[in-house]
């Protein structure tokens, strides 16, 4: 009788997954155990563990604060294609997007605090989307001063490309640092470029969000022009990316249109 009940329990597994999820709650507080969050998210089906129809061989999770709550950024990857899911502590997926990159350093990210694949700055929630800056080259314990960066609004149904820029170093050397400012203005925040990383000086370029046109309006000094190329969304030309499409495919044509040293405000075909 006891054996029959035991075997019956093993077949039905009543409450085992819920119990496991409850146990793993403590892992949200321990950085070395964050990957258990990814395991539970995949096991529960909240996060698709397959990449290109095969079970992804690699996973990772990190926990980031967003306003008054925290989210787990769960990445599954085969080191060629990666899917990032932004998951609440009750394993609800608020948004996800995919990346294609052959550079493992972009995916595994050796340095602390910077996650070039998914979020360089802390995530910000705005208008039902999670705003995040992602990089297209690995960052080695450095703020964004060189390479291509995309500012995304990540949602549950799709992601919207808000801003793309390419930063480069000039002679001297001179460079600009990309930073986010004024998040209380009701929009996704303004973006600034600071010469040689000097946040205490006035920005050499400012991209202010225009809520009426839903685009960034640029104010650029001569210093910044040779160091940055940029693209902005607009109300007439929004670029949305489906969750299973790689954002790299949306960003690449924009970057391809950037001149080597000219500042452009170009817009690709809508996707």
């Amino acid at each position, binding site marked *: 009788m006891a054996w029959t009940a035991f075997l019956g329990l093993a077949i039905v597994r009543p409450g*085992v997954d819920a119990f*496991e999820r409850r146990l*793993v709650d403590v892992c949200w507080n321990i950085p070395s155990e964050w990957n258990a969050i990814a395991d539970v998210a995949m096991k529960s089906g909240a996060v698709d563990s397959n990449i290109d129809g095969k079970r992804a061989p690699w996973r990772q999770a990190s926990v980031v604060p967003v306003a008054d709550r925290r989210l787990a950024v769960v990445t599954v990857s085969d080191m060629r294609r990666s899917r990032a899911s932004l998951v609440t502590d009750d394993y609800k997926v608020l948004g996800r997007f995919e990346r294609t990159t052959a550079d493992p350093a972009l995916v595994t990210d050796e340095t602390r605090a910077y996650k070039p694949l998914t979020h360089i700055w802390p995530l910000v929630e705005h208008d039902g989307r999670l705003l995040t800056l992602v990089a297209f080259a690995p960052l080695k314990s450095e703020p964004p001063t060189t390479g291509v960066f995309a500012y995304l609004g990540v949602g549950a149904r799709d992601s919207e490309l808000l801003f793309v820029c390419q930063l480069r170093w000039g002679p001297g050397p001179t460079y600009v640092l990309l930073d986010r400012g004024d998040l209380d203005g009701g929009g996704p925040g303004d973006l600034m470029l600071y010469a040689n990383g000097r946040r205490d000086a006035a920005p050499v370029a400012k991209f202010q969000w225009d809520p009426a046109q839903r685009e960034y309006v640029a104010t650029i000094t001569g210093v910044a022009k040779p160091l940055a190329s940029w693209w902005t969304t607009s109300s007439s030309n929004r670029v949305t990316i489906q969750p299973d499409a790689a954002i790299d495919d949306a960003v690449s044509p924009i970057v391809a249109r950037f001149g080597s040293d000219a500042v452009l405000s170009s817009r690709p075909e809508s996707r």
Partner: protein
Amino acid sequence: MSFVSPLAFAARALLSPWSLGHRSERLSAFAAISLAGIFVTAAVALSTLLSTWTYLAGKGLLVSIGEMDMGRDDLPADSVSQVLGALAGSAITWTCLLAVAVFVCVAVADALYHHDREAWRMAIERTSVLTIWFVVWALLMIAANSVRQGEVRHPAAAIRAYAQLNQRWFRGPSAENPGPIEREPLVAHGRVRILAIAFPLVWSVAMPQPTRGRRRARAVIVLLALTLSWLAWAAAWRLLPWVAIDAFAG
């Protein structure tokens, strides 16, 4: 029936467990419980030794408290209390897992000797003394890890390599230039799987003949014990929260 020295009994359990099945020698209850306590504690200590948390605590002890993390990867540092708490959690987890292994034996013995309490007591005594094989298993896991990591002469380096692979799922010291993706097979569920398959083999050959009722051939007793043990393990396996166990055991 004769009572024998616990040490002699343990030595026989280690060297020729099958010989226990032929004899009617007994252990006192105190000796049986003491031996089981000693062997399970030793196995838990050895299992916890091969744990990510041991590496983290050791790193904090030898380097600095600020280094109680996985080093050059993308994680912020764990706090001292988190690492020490998790190290204790690892020991508790291993204790629970070995308790499951003992419980499986007790349950199977109960099924085998349901109407024969004398034989059941003998089976429990033998189970207690056979927990010496938990120590063998734990030592073998440490040795297997050293061989797998190519660090036979440097067990500490092998434990470090285990911790890094367990955490990162790729080899190599650098996340910037990671080696091939690889999952650590000797995490908790991997080690327990080996125990769940191998321990019943040893345990079942040490089971006594029934002292009353229908006499069965010894091979039948062994096969029944083995089959029921594996069945119980398969059922227990489905009921255990392995993600949490792997995380806590380190």
